């Protein structure tokens, strides 16, 4: 009897919203990274975020250099949302870092309003044959206390294995074979 009374009174407070969960802020999510190398698109994609990404292997014809562009997409959104424009608009707080073990190399092809590299476009280089992983990291570098933390030399810090400010918005790896 007492238990019945409890249930009756407490049930008055129950609500239905709990049964219809939603995942908010889908625009925050980067599910896909696209590399465009000399017009060919290579994709790292995990739209379900289930830990099983589909990754296109990259094959380069041999030593040389190629233009490379990076795009960041949210494929959870319908239609697919291209986040690259937001990164470009806030380029003073973003930088793309490229982990390019030998024989790969990378040269930034764009700068922000402060003359610092962004990395949405650049040049990918190869000095010889080999199979390595190309790491692409989009780093969000928001000012701290109003003071910019995106400063000159971060690419060198990254290459040397040093500590970067900010947080990784995306951090993916492509297998690369240089013939």
């Amino acid at each position: 009897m007492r238990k019945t009374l409890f249930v009756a009174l407490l049930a008055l407070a129950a609500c239905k919203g709990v049964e219809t969960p939603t995942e908010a802020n889908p625009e925050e999510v980067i599910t896909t990274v696209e590399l465009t190398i000399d017009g060919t698109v290579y994709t790292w994609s995990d739209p379900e975020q289930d830990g099983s990404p589909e990754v296109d292997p990259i094959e380069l014809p041999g030593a040389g250099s190629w233009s490379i562009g990076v795009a960041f997409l949210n494929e959870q959104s319908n239609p697919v949302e291209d986040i690259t424009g937001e990164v470009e608009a806030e380029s003073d707080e973003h930088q793309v870092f490229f982990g390019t073990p030998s024989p790969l190399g990378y040269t930034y092809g764009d700068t922000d309003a402060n003359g610092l590299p962004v990395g949405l476009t650049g040049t990918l280089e190869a000095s010889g044959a080999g199979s390595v992983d190309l790491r692409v990291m989009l780093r969000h570098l928001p000012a701290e206390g109003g003071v910019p933390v995106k400063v000159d030399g971060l690419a060198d810090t990254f290459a040397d294995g040093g500590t970067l400010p900010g947080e990784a918005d995306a951090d993916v790896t492509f297998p690369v074979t240089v013939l």
Partner: protein
Amino acid sequence: MTGGPCPLIATEMHLDRPTHVYCSRPRVVVAVLLLVSTPALACDERVSGHVHTLEDEPVAGARVEIDEHVATTADDGRFVMTGVCPGPHEIHVHHVELMPWSGTVVVPTDHLDIELVEDAEVVVVEAPAFSARDPHSRTTVEGVALERQRGRDLGGVLEGVPGVTLLTTSTGATRPMVRGMYGRRLLLLRDGMRHESQRWGDDHAPEVDPFAMASVSVVRGAAGVRYGPDAVGGVVLMESPALRRERGVEGRVDTVAGSNGGRGTVGGQLDLADGNGLSVRLQANHQSSGSQSAPDYVLGNTASRVSNAAVTVGWQKGDVDLEAGLRHHAYAAGICYCVTASSAEELQAAFDADRPLNADLWHADRTLDRPRQDVTHDTVYARGAVFTGLGTLEVRANTQINRRKEYDRARETIEDAQFDFLLATHTLDTTLQHRRFHLGSGTVQGTLGATGTLQENVYRGLPLVPNHRAWSFGAFLAERLSLGHALIEAGARVDHQARASFLTLEAWRRHTARESIAPDACTTTTEAARCENAWTAGSFTLGGIWHDPGERVEARLDLSSATRFPNGDELYLNGAAPTQPVYGLGRPDLKPEITWGASPTVALALPALHAEVGAYVNRVDGAIVFAPQYADDGSPAVQVTSQGAFPSWAFEQVDAVYAGLDGQVAVRVARALTVTAAGSRVRAHQRGTGELVPFVPADRGTVGLEVAPADLGSFDGTTLAVGLTGVARQRHTSAATDLVPAPDGYARLDASIDVPVTTGDQQILLGLAGTNLLNAHIRSYTSLLRAYADEPGRDVRFRASLIF
């Protein structure tokens, strides 16, 4: 004006919550039983009763007053008075060696059963009190000790209690750990009501207002029967001052200024009563702090703002006591810029560095930048007690709405929180404290009760935890047999919880793809996957107290168990762990954690020596731990995400043992000089494997001096205290689960001076307290900052309170 808020509340007040409680300044009275019955008509009533101590010793020579009627108790503690008019009357009981008691009695009445407690001035935390009458190891912070901590959060208030360690969150706020357990294994009760919030998150500080408390007690060890599920490591009992009952107005105004962060707090409390049963309390405070500073740098973005407001209305008439209230708590705080690690490598690099990467850029201001937390906690409650022939029947209902928004670093176009939790909890419980009866040469008193809770969690944000709805029911019976110098307590409780979790279909697919949920474990619709769990578990307690006739030695033994049902994150977490660079997965088939605790305590109360030492062993069957996962070949498992590859961690169950001891001693070496010492030690390991349990506090000890000069006239009660705390390096760590090594040990010097100034009916309390006066570089093993930055450095607080 003689009434006032209670600066001292005996530790049993909640359990035996009398509702005829009255506070008379400067002393405070706690009484237990008044049993009243039916009304009559003419002024010819006879009122009888007996007065006794907590130990059931009769009190002879006590003066009992009801209006103009006066009686004195005989050798057996009994009294009789005649010619009393029917209806409600104030009753006052005085004895030269005991604390006076006042209350209300409705005539005609049954034989009155009045309990007086020993007289004592303010009890400070260093002094063990036998009056606790609890087989558990317990310490209460109240009076001067509580006043000294005004302006600090709950963790700060309890920092000096043996067995309590602070967990520093990423905002700089603290939360208490008791005997190595915290969060979901540490139950918080505010005026007998469970504080329900997102306790599972390590950086979720308790949403409570220490300004509103008259006492804060720490009950160490499992205490599931008396307090319900989750009382695994212990319970923190927070009690408000009793409402004013006499006609008139009283209140207090508090101001606190702190040097570290330029912290300022202002608050006030106003109590009104019409003398005819109606009481009202208004209470509010606000604290603003800039970013705190470590010894060598500002901890960027650790500014905070805390606001509290509460209204309480009470009505007491005859044998009925009602109370209702509203409480609002708001907390907004930045998370230190320093807490950032996108990978295990970055975490290690942060730990290896002497100072945070951008520490030179940070400055002290009051801006709350991303990342930050924005938390509100609202409570509405009502409770009523009625005195019947059976005893005291109390019914309590409350609703708590906990809203937590966490804003991560985000692009400027994103304004919303990345983690948005709404936790609504509705509780209805009832207890019957039956009237005392005699059994052989002893007396029996006890409580039986039932409780029901509906809790709903609605989460929006990045993939993390599901929504859930949980129904919980519990019933318990606890009885105490008092036998002169001994007391035996026994009790049992059963709890049941039925939980339905609601996952988005995307979250459901992520789980099944990772094989953390079996495909047939839940039912799916077009909107959600519904996953159900149900558990039933029992708790037991058996304990005893013995003290010598002179009350110089007291021994307590507590054998108790407690249950904890798995939380939503432990069952269905799927996402980056908020406080570590790992990917976390829940486990839907978890069973309740059952803790079996044994804790003997010995206390001495000699004229110049007070000491209490407690030891304990807590066996936790099915302890739910968060641990790294391994592939079949023994290599660490990894979860690949678009933000990098993270070590895969998951919740699993092990059998663990927590053991240790804690204690304190105070020796009065001269009339005005007391030397104090306290210490605690915790060890925890997994049964079978011997693997250590991580995040257990390091050994620690404190020595102190307290000077309390006598005969200072208006400044009587002035105290000067100095304390030196030493904390060892935690060497009992687990390489598998500690992502970075334990930091070195440290020493910390604190000091305070408290000056009460009494002028007529008003009292002014002045205090100056310094924490970490030598500005030592401290990294604590139980701090979420420990891999990134030093703890906040020197802080000097000045406070002034006016009590009127």
